[in-house]
């Protein structure tokens, strides 16, 4: 089980309070699809993903990105029990969505990079370390129910 120190929790929650979930969500998912184009395999129904600008401007990408990041917000409220918090979503990603858990790791790292670009100097090495722990915990929690 991942254990977060008080400092790590503070680093995560204080930053999260300043995140525009809608905007950031679109950017995170968009960048995943741009930087790792093979991840587009899950989004055939999303329409035009033919170029970086098409992807970043795609309304379905933005909407889905917002959904994903809102879910991350739930993780942050449940940092002491990520596996419990994500049990249902884990089953969904395995049984219905058939997503390779490696994709959770890719998304987590893209998220860290987007946070770095938004928060600049405030995204210190210590803050990054707390977030790396969180995204790894979420990725593991989402993979936990796979069978």
């Amino acid at each position, binding site marked *: 089980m991942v254990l977060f120190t008080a400092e790590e929790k503070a680093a995560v929650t204080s930053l999260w309070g300043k995140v525009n979930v809608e905007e950031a969500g679109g950017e995170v998912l968009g960048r995943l699809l741009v930087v790792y184009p093979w991840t587009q395999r899950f989004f055939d129904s999303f329409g035009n993903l033919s170029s970086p600008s098409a992807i970043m401007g795609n309304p379905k990408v933005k909407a889905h990105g917002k959904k994903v990041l809102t879910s991350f917000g739930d993780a942050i409220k449940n940092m002491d029990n990520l596996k419990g918090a994500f049990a249902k979503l884990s089953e969904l990603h395995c049984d219905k969505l058939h997503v390779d858990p490696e994709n959770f790791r890719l998304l987590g790292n893209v998220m860290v990079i987007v946070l*770095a670009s938004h928060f600049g100097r405030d995204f210190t090495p210590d803050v*990054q*370390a707390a977030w790396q722990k969180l995204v790894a915990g979420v990725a593991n929690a989402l993979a936990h129910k796979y069978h």
Partner: protein
Amino acid sequence: MSLTKAERTIVVSMWGKIATQADVIGMEALERLFSSFPQTKTYFPHFDLHPGSAQLRAHGSKVLAALGDAVKSIDNVAGALSKLSELHAYVLRVDPVNFKLLSHCLLVTVASHFPADFTADAHAAWDKFLSTVSRVLTEKYR
């Protein structure tokens, strides 16, 4: 996975900005690596790894200088990094998984210093470029 002409152009032009702060960026990337992925410290038992240490600064510069060599010969990264590739294969033997970790920390550092330039296109080009560098450096491992 080789770089397109457009990707090379992006990498080379961003390098112009990165190079002006190469030392800071190199050191910061290493600091981020050691903070987020403490297991990477096992390769540096002989170093003072406190943030700001002279050794960290020197090593960060070294890493960025090598990246600069790769950028200058972006059409032939394997040629430019041939000696370094041998060093990593026969002497340093850093497990290949760590190149992804350092590449990630380099991207985080660049994103935090140059947010306006680090567009989705630039992110993709740099991720690909660093993958290429990583591949070259581990090419002779076995």
